[in-house]
Structure formats: C-alpha cells, structure tokens
C-alpha cells in the first residue's frame, strides 16, 4: 500500500518555493511537506535511478542514494527526517521486475538496523501501486528491518523473500541500554506469503500496527515471543490477516495491549478443522482488550475451528463484541 499522506510529486521538490497543497486535503499546504517537522531533511533512496550513489548527500531526488542503510547514517535524531524510497518495477511474483520497465527492475534488497541515533525517522515507500515498494532481505531468512530506535514510522512497503528463501520483515527491540525500539508505527504495508515472521516486538511498547495486510505468513504475523519480554500498550487495529499460520500471538507476558477492528480469515477455522491458537493468542499476559475483530470461526461449540480453538485469552483480558461467523462472541475464548 502507498504511504499515507504522501502527495506525489510535490514531496520530491527539494526546496519548494511555495506550498500549494493538495486540493481538498487539509494541512497539506504547509512548509513541511512530507517531513515530520520544518527542520527535517528528506533523504531519497532509489537504486534504480541512473547514477544512484551512496557518496551523495541524498537530499536531491535526482541524485538519490543507493541504499537505505546509507540514508540511516545521515539521519539526525528527532529532527523529523524522512527517508523516501522510490518505487520500482519488481513485485512479489517477479523479483527481477515485470519487464515493463527494465530500468526500474531492482527491488530494495537490504537488511538494515535503525540505530537509536536515528530516532524519529520515517521510512516511506513511495509507490503508486496498492502493495507498496518491494523490500526483500539480502540473505536467506534475513530480517529486512531491525528497529532499535524510538518513534520510528515504517510504511508503504511490500515485504517478500524475493530471490532468497524465507524472510522476516520487522523486528523491534528495547533493552534501555543501546536498544530503544519503541513507539514504532508500521502502517500501510503488505507482508506476503513468503514472509515467515512479519512483525516481532521484544519489550517494545506503545507500538501502533495498522492498515497492514498480512497474507499467509508462514510462521506468525504479529508476535511477542513466549520466552521474550512481551509488549505493552501496543495497538493492533484495522489490519487484515489472511490465512496466516498464526495471526496475532502476544506472549511473554504481554499486557495492556489493544487488538481491535481487525479481520482474521483462517481457512482451517472457516472449514471447522483444527486451528489451535492460529487466531489471537494472549496466553500468559494480562489486561489486554480484544474487541470488534471479525473472525472466520464459529462461536464455541466446542469443536475444531471454533472460537475456543482458534483463539486463547489471558486470564485478565477482556474480549468484547468480537464477530464470529455465526454471531457475536460473549465469553472470552479459552
């Protein structure tokens, strides 16, 4: 999906002399454009652009950087900087490009770490397509983005394995010493059926995961590991989870999270086959709210694929008004 609030091609102006805005879109006629603040700098990454080079300063869209990794070294913390990643002709079924534009066939193929010195950065894939700018790892089972910074926004990408085998998309971690992955927003992204783990949170709080599509992810779409430190105060909403091996698994003592307005389809649950905890699982956590999600399972029967099979609630969680195939959920799943 394209990045939100992105106005093409106005943001590509390096030093816009005026700010005409976009008709009918309040707030676009400001001096910040795509930047998060007036002081922010926009860095352009486009490996397909003729002569793209990491030797440049990256602030001119007609002299872009070659890699996101280089752009991350140029970002200043909390300045409102934005890394704009240009679109390409690659897509999930044609990692080398569709052939329509052989000059723009190269996908982003990188495994980057956002250091704490890059806090506040927004990384935007700028594409006219519905899926976003294609991003693959640079090795088998590699992780595309590791977030160790606070206040990061990631949007507008389609994550896929590309020429490699296996792919983890986003890993966010906080330890308070050198790792400060927290308050991360992931939105308007697509995680395709070659992705193993789409988003993992390790003691990362206050994250906001919305408007994403998780398509048949092989391991899990959104998770905190059972042996990990969980997540808290995270919002997971308005996403579509299509037949993922596991949709949402917040373990490791995850608490105070809100999971709402998501659509979860699972073929096994829909077909009354075993789907143990393949939906939403908050076992071992506490005080999570799960409300108004749409689930492709029956109310508790009990039987394979029903709500109790598909989902498990933590003891103190509250499930309110989630929609099963045959009616509203009343009791928390067990």
């Amino acid at each position, binding site marked *: 999906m394209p990045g939100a609030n992105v106005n093409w091609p106005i943001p590509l102006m390096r030093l816009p002399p005026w700010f005409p805005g976009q008709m009918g879109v309040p707030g676009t006629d400001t001096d910040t454009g795509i930047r998060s603040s007036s002081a922010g700098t926009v860095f352009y990454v486009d490996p397909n652009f003729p002569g793209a080079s990491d030797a440049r300063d990256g602030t001119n869209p007609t002299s872009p950087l070659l890699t996101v990794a280089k752009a991350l070294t140029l970002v200043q913390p909390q300045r409102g900087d934005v890394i704009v990643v240009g679109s390409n002709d690659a897509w999930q079924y044609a990692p080398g490009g569709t052939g329509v534009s052989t000059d723009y066939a190269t996908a982003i193929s990188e495994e980057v770490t956002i250091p704490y010195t890059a806090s506040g950065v927004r990384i935007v894939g700028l594409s006219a397509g519905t899926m976003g700018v294609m991003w693959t790892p640079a090795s088998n089972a590699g992780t595309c983005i590791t977030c160790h910074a606070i206040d990061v926004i990631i949007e507008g990408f389609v994550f896929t394995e590309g020429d490699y085998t296996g792919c983890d998309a986003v890993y966010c971690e906080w330890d*308070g*010493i050198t790792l400060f992955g927290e308050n991360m927003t992931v939105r308007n992204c697509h995680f395709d059926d070659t992705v193993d783990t789409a988003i993992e949170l390790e003691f990362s*709080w206050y994250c906001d995961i919305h408007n994403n599509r998780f398509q048949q992810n092989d391991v899990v779409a959104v998770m905190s590991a059972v042996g*990990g*430190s969980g997540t*808290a105060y995270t919002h997971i909403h308005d996403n579509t989870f299509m037949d993922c091996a596991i949709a949402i698994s917040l373990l*490791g003592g995850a608490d105070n999270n809100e999971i709402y307005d998501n659509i979860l389809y699972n073929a096994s649950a829909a077909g009354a086959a075993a789907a143990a905890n393949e939906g939403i699982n908050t076992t071992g956590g506490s005080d999570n709210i799960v409300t108004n999600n749409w689930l492709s399972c029956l109310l508790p029967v009990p039987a394979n694929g029903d709500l109790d099979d598909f989902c498990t609630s933590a003891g103190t969680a509250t499930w309110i008004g989630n929609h099963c195939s045959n009616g509203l959920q009343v009791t928390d799943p067990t």
Partner: protein
Amino acid sequence: MQASKSKLVRHYKLSGKDAQSLIDAGLTTPKLIRAASDNGLKALKGIGESALADIRKKVG
C-alpha cells in the same frame, strides 16, 4: 538509566532499589531477568531472599 523511571519500577512495580541493582547488572528486561539464575540474582548488591522472591513474583 534512572531506576525510578524504568519499566521495572513503573510497570512491574519493583522497588527502586531492586530495580537499580538489576539495571546496574544489565538486567533491564524480563527476558534477561528470567534467564538469570536465583544465585546469580542474589549475587547482585542488595538482592536478598525477599527481594529475589519479589522479583520472581512480579517479573518472572
């Protein structure tokens, strides 16, 4: 890291003194604390049996 403002105090309700001992030892997350042995935790300054029990109860 200031223990009184840390996740271990504000979220897990550990005492500031115990949290500071853990933080000084680099044990800043539940995952790291759970991975530490009881003897390892008791070897930290200010962590006795009661503090250990409190940590295990609140954090794991």
